[in-house]
């Protein structure tokens, strides 16, 4: 089995949900798992930063962030022009696909560890910086460049959203204390990571099953988009990683980030910033189509694509 066993838990949750089981995770447990995963990932990045020359990361971050604008801009055109989706809906969905999914990233990293493939731990720093630009692009697409009071509240809302705050906060803590200073936290936040991730994916499976209802409203165009767009974005990620000279493992993770769609930070921000957009569409596509696709098919696919690309280019 090259898949990580945590994927098994995702499928278990999916099956339970589709069978109409009474299995459910309490909302308190979801919150706890989210908080845990965000801290654990931030901390790992921070520990890494403490051992890396930070200045050497500035250029890659700028490039990675700049290129990440590709996904929401292309998505918007596809959705609005080809898919005939309304202006606000196209903008909102673009935001979801331009932003990133922390759990998809974790599944990607698990896959690499399982296969004994090396990657750079500072990839979680990229994760932090990729969370919000697409959210801002989405708002700009929807409301134009009116830099009114609303946009300030929005920016603040996004930057103080729990996803960014916990990622950045834990990153700083890991950076300041370093892996040695924070050694007492390693057992909890690294040793148990897979167990928490398994529970989280069980819950994601249940939630995805609940979203299958929305899929009907989503329609075939959006369902197709939810599979094709991630692959396109992942190709972009592989190209960017290769240009930046990242290792194959790191490049695959960048592809996974580009190819993943947000379902924590983006929906919360969009609900306030573009209330005209129908959340059933964006969440139906991101949770109902893209997340399961990425977790089960996308992650191994992106790895094969990366290997192939590096072989061809070398």
């Amino acid at each position, binding site marked *: 089995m090259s898949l990580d066993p945590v994927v098994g838990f995702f499928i278990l949750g999916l099956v339970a949900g589709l069978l109409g089981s009474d299995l*459910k*995770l*309490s*909302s308190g447990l*979801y919150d706890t798992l989210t908080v845990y995963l965000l801290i654990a990932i931030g901390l790992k990045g921070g520990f890494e930063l403490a051992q890396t020359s930070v200045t050497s990361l500035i250029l890659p971050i700028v490039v990675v962030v700049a290129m990440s604008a590709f996904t929401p801009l292309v998505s918007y055109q596809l959705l609005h022009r080809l898919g005939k989706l309304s202006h606000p809906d196209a903008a909102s969905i673009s935001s979801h696909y331009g932003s990133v999914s922390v759990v998809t990233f974790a599944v990607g990293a698990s896959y690499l560890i399982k296969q004994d493939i090396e990657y750079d731990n500072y990839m979680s720093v990229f994760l932090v910086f990729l969370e919000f630009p697409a959210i801002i692009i989405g708002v700009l697409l929807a409301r134009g460049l009116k830099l009114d009071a609303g946009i300030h509240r929005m920016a603040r809302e996004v930057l103080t959203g729990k996803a960014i705050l916990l990622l950045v906060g834990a990153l700083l803590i890991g950076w300041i204390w370093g892996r040695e200073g924070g050694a007492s936290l390693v057992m909890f936040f690294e040793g148990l990571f897979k167990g928490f991730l398994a529970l989280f994916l069980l*819950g994601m499976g*249940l*939630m995805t099953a*609940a979203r299958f*209802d*929305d899929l009907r409203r989503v329609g075939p165009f959006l369902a197709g988009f939810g599979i094709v767009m991630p692959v396109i974005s992942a190709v972009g990620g592989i190209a960017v990683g290769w240009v930046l000279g990242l290792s194959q493992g790191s490049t695959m993770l960048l592809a996974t980030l580009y190819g993943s769609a947000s*379902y*924590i930070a983006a*929906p*919360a921000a969009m*609900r*306030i910033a573009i*209330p*005209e957009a129908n*959340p*059933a569409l964006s*969440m139906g596509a991101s949770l109902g189509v893209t997340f399961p696709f990425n977790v089960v098919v996308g992650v191994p696919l992106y790895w094969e694509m990366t290997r192939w690309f590096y072989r061809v280019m070398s």
Partner: protein
Amino acid sequence: MVLPGDVLTAATMGPVKYVVIVCEEALEPLIGHDIMDCGAKGYTVSTVRGRGVRGVRDARSFLSSNIRIEVLCDPAVAQAVLDTVYGKYAKHYGLVGFMQDAVAPDPDGY
């Protein structure tokens, strides 16, 4: 509001309006402010789940679950709360609101 020393009996009871609003959790801070701005002295919120034309909504969706806000207030405030909330949010958000008569001790405190 009841002050220390007040004697509270049936005699102090009188009519108040009772307003209930069910909406997405994301609106809690916004509507909370609106209610106070309309002149209410307080409100009570509970986390609920629901089904409506927008489908099933519960805490398992990351988006947010529903909340139920209830306010005791005088008739003018009650109408203002419903008008404001419906005017601002009914267009884009799932929203249910209504108003009832109630009888409360110390009705002038609301």
